[in-house]
């Protein structure tokens, strides 16, 4: 690694007497040992949820969107809520891996890999919903601007089309970024492999990484480039998603604050989700000394910060509604806070603004037991944020005659629960088959590491 800036944290990033081999051993243990009963249990649950998803999705496609609760004024409900929710989750990954990397925040090393993986999985989950909400998913092909026998072009004025580009770019870059980072570690796994087949598979996956000096310098260039490439994405993706609403005429959607508000919210929810999973991960795979309390501490500080931004957005929305003086706008926000969906609104406010304030206290930030409920609630709150924006704005817009109420059906619920299952399944498989912590980078921040070119070659030699 190139020479490091001053580390963010005084305490060492990796605790305890530990050398490179030990790291390899610790991180690779889950890959090399038969999965524990706990893992199987978790996998079974996730798998069942995944099956539920498959059932609900099939039913939807077979019968139509009528199987959902959506109705005439409320054209979008849980479908797009889930989509935005999952896209948001992904953001922490990109932020940690790209922006913190560029800022040389070396504490990120322990959690970067996991967060990136999460990004990729979250995008996969998110993609299910735009497809499903068509009811006839195969027609999504028409979204692609390719020559066709109808001689029709797509409508570039439509924010939904912008979504297609934004999200696909995002997904693709995130994946490549993640995979590039994996290469040296895959090589390590390959080298440690006993079984021939295992050697073969990881050998192919590692694209013949040999840890040569040239490989390393290419690798670092590539990694840096991807970091630069995906940094704007952190901001662009959710901004574009927010345009779906911001560019409309519907009071409650038609709001200029949306892009920054959505991005902040996304990072907020993303970090909460990373924390949610990594707390379990480090515990079950005994990586407490690699992903230390300090890591979670720093993440929680970011959570508080973003929570405040989100809270500010909530306030400013109301202010503008009042200040703008448009009757429809005013009604929508009053309706949010005191209308039939007030419960959803206040759930959102509690979970996203009030609860996170607990994280001002170091004791809570640094205690797994105490911070866990907080981050869980944030995940809940962020889902409700999207629900509130979408449903409460739609169900009462301009003409009272067209007002109606939305009630979800079992299919709506199953699809959301199922998407969680899909996400967990992917995460669990990831923990089993890939190094959950970036070995190469962690070694860079070990106490004994002498991060210069010679050192790098020496340690490269470790693999060679």
């Amino acid at each position: 690694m190139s020479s490091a800036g001053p580390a963010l944290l005084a305490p060492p990033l990796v605790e305890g007497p530990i050398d490179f081999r030990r790291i390899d051993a610790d991180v690779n243990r889950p890959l090399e040992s038969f999965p524990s009963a706990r893992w199987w249990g978790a996998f079974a649950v996730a798998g069942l949820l995944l099956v539920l998803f498959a059932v609900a999705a099939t039913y939807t496609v077979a019968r139509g969107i009528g199987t959902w609760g959506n109705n005439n004024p409320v054209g979008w409900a849980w479908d797009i809520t889930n989509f935005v929710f999952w896209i948001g989750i992904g953001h922490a990954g990109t932020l940690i891996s790209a922006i913190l990397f560029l800022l040389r925040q070396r504490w990120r090393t322990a959690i970067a890999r996991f967060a990136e993986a999460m990004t990729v999985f979250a995008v996969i989950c998110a993609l299910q919903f735009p497809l499903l909400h068509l009811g006839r998913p195969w027609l999504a092909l028409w979204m692609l601007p390719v020559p066709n026998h109808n001689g029709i072009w797509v409508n570039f004025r439509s924010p939904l089309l912008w979504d297609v580009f934004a999200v696909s770019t995002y997904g693709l870059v995130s994946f490549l970024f993640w995979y590039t980072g994996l290469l040296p570690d895959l090589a390590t796994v390959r080298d440690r492999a006993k079984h021939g087949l295992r050697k073969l598979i990881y050998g192919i996956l590692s694209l013949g990484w040999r840890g040569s000096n040239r490989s390393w310098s290419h690798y670092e260039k590539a990694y840096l480039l991807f970091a630069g490439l995906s940094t704007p994405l952190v901001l662009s993706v959710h901004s574009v998603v927010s345009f779906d609403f911001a560019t409309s005429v519907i009071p409650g959607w038609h709001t200029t604050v949306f892009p920054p508000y959505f991005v902040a919210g996304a990072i907020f929810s993303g970090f909460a989700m990373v924390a949610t999973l990594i707390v379990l991960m480090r515990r079950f795979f005994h990586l407490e000394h690699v992903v230390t309390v300090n890591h979670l501490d720093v993440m929680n500080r970011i959570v508080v910060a973003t929570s405040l931004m989100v809270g500010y957005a909530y306030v400013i929305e109301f202010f503008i509604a009042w200040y703008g003086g448009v009757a429809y706008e005013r009604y929508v926000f009053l309706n949010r806070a005191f209308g039939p969906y007030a419960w959803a609104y206040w759930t959102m406010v509690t979970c996203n603004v009030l609860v996170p304030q607990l994280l001002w206290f170091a004791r809570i930030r640094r205690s797994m037991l105490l911070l866990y409920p907080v981050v869980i609630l944030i995940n809940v709150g962020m889902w409700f944020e999207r629900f509130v924006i979408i449903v409460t704005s739609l169900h009462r817009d301009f003409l009272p005659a067209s007002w109606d109420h939305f009630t979800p059906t079992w299919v709506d619920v199953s699809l959301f629960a199922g998407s969680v299952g899909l996400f967990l399944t992917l995460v669990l498989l990831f923990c089993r088959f890939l190094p959950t912590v970036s070995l190469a980078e962690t070694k860079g921040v070990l106490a004994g590491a002498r991060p210069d070119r010679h050192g790098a070659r020496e340690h490269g030699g470790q693999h060679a």
Partner: protein
Amino acid sequence: MKDHRLPPLLATAWRAAGLAVRDEVLHPPARIDRRTLLELMAASSALALGAGCDRKPPRKIVSMHDAPEYLHPGQPLHYATTWTDGPVPYGLMVRNLDGRPVKVEGLPEHPLNRGTATAAMQAALMSLYDPDRLRAPRRGEAEIGWDEVDRIVVEALRAARKVVLLTRAMLGPAERALVARFVAACRGAVHLVHETVHDGARRLAWRVAYGADGELRPRYDRARVVLSVDCDFLGTDGDVLGATAGWAARRSPATVAATEELSRLWIAEAGLSVTGANADHHLSLLPSAALGLVGALRAALGGDGAALGRWADAEHVERRVLDTLAADLRDHRGEAVVVAGAHLPASVHAAVCLLNDELGAAGTTLEWCSAPATLPPDDPAKIARAMESGVDVLVTLGVNPVYDFPGGEGAALVAKARLAVGHGLHRDETLHACHLALPSHHGLESWNDALLGAGSYGLCQPVITPLFASRQEAESLLAWTKALAPGDPELQAAADWPAWLRRHWARNVLAGEPDTAWDDALRRGFHGMRQAEAFPALNRKGAEAWAGRAPSARGEHELVLLPHHAVFDGRFAANGWLQELPEPITKLVWDNAAVLAPATAAALGVEDEDWISVRSGDRAVNLPVLVLPGVAAGVVVTTLGHGRTAAGTIGTERGVNVAPLLPETPRMGERIVTRVDVQRTSGPNHTFARTQKTFSMEGRPIVLRGTRQEYEANPHFPAARTHSTPDSQLHPDWDYSTGHKWVMAIDLSRCTGCSACVVACNAENNIPIVGKDECTNGREMHWMRLDTYYGGDAEHPEVHSQPMLCQHCDNAPCETVCPFNATAHSPEGLNEQVYNRCAGTRYCANNCPYKVRRFNFFDYPKLATTDPVQELAYNPQVTVRMRGVMEKCTFCVQRIHEAKFRAADADRPVADGDVRPACQQTCPAAAIVFGDGNDPASRVAALARSPLAYHVLGELNVRPNVNYLARIVNPHPALSAPPGAGAEGGGDR
């Protein structure tokens, strides 16, 4: 022409790939067929067999054997006929395509309806193709042939000593003549007329007052002041189309010569009817107090105001209002008319005759017609007496006593008959109870005639060959009569019913006319215009005697039984379009209810969807409650026609049958009970499906309403109450400088909210019905909806109704957000929706400020039925939408193209009025005008220039192309609210 042949190698390749699914998947399945009926059958069978697995399912194209020269595939033929299923014999114009009717419209030039149509008339199409129709004669469950039927019936009739022929009131002259022959030929035969919803009481009073059977026809177009005593003449009572046209002609400043011409409508009613919703002054009236009110008014006009005061105090009505009413009538002698509801007792109608006489209405605002279209119905008590002792043969023609006989004793009466023969469209309650169930032709399959008035006859001709093994009632009657009277030369001369009809016309109607007269009558659908008749002298004494009768004793609660605005007395209950047609005031579909005033409900401790039991004498019915402002306290208003037990998949078990509560009194067919016992009761959890949930305008400028005084003070008041559209915008406007620019104008002063346009739209645009559950979930598909808002106070609310449809915005929010370009803007200003390009993101619907876009959440066309017969009702000019597709009003773009083609053929430009969307064409009030906004001379352009014209939500700069004309009401100056008050609705609910 760029294509080249497909290399054979590839050809085999894709054949091997077997791609039958492609079109099924990407496109709506083959539902409409634009070729012949034969071909449709072939196509569906071919599909069923899944014949062929390459490309898409191959379809047959079937040549005729020898084609008639007048038939051009895909080109419509129009036939004129007469509506004989309903209470008034309106003229029908039936649009035929490839041998099947696809649209029923009003007959232009018809003396009664002049091209307009009610919801029920247009829905006739739906019942013609109703798959639940009885398809063959049945004896019990066994299907039998018509010869068998005739043998059984004739034998029975020969042997019979006592025969009852029970028919509906709407019988044409030819049919009446035939019935007379039947009664003559058949020993012990008696002909009785059974109707539950009819004007028997009125007819009785008129007969007494004017000494002859006939009917009075109010001329609302001549009346400056109209007082309706619980008469829903704009909704369900009498000649609705004529009344609406006449009334609307005097309502809008945009179309009257001077504001002095505007008429004023007073109504005193028990419920809140369509008429009440359009009234300038609304008084609550208990049915039992109607006689008193009319009497008091007579006295007041006679100079004795005291009676009015007494009545006002007794009924807790503001004295000032009544005095003003009396004064208003007095001031407009000769220009005023008073009408009373058909459900009120004869005494009231007698009193009204006297009152009208005092107002000098005779011959000015009232016309006499000595030839009513319907027979005077018989008293239920009389019918019961005739049948109680048991008859040998009972023949029912198109009536359903088992379902709707007052008191609910129909089943018992029919059961008493030794042989019961039922003729009907469906196997309804009565046909189930009969030994022989005989399928009738639908009106559109029948030959018939009708009386339109003195010297005016309507002719009814079949417009499709019968779909099933049915036979017209008259045909059966003729066959049986011929068998009974072999000696009658005239009967024997008539080979069949059409022959009889033609003979009858030749002798009685067209006597002395040229031979072409019959063909002319067929072409025009009627013969002769109505002649003005001398107004008969009033038999004051007789009328006084009736008017003097004391009203029946009043109880704590009173009951009013009205016909349902759509399914009427239940005869249309099997019709999906009508079941799903929102009730104009409550927006209730698929159901009826006990409508109560908030006060009444509070007193009973019930709310919406709770159950009450209504007991009259020994008969009780449980009803779900619907609370409605504007209803008189202490009254239960409910509608007949629901609660059918045998009306096919559509009509069975919808709502509650209230016929048992109908009084059987010898006072002639009134439909009120002045003493009922109402109790809160428990019942199954009930949900009303209402297509509108919020009835308050929330103080938003949606329906603009102003009094005549406000209008005279400042004609431009709408501009003051709406935010104007910005003139300039960032992106360039559309260029409409050349060609057409289609624009619509809707005059809210004329619109009564009758909802005929909704059914017109359904029929024209293949809009599916979705059923009660989907309606409950807010998924109804109507492109044209009528929004109803209540304003003012809860006792006498202002009701505003507003037709809401796609506004075809110039800056359409839906167009920008569709990623597929499935909704686009046409150079003529139309906002076009391309079903086969729509993938169903629903983004456009979300972004539509008017929420007029409709999404196919399920495969609705298949949801209703998969019977191919139903598919014949589809209009081949409009695509049937599959699930996952968004749809909305197109301004009937298919008609626009048709008009252009016609103009092109005639080598002339499209003229104003050439293009008339289904809603405009049918609107009885002529409230909707469509046309080319680029043509300054067009009517629509003129209306758009009116100071009353405004855009709903114009401030969003979506630039809608539907101009609403603010509603002008004409309250009496003495009672008119100060300008501005309540002008924008708002208020509770």
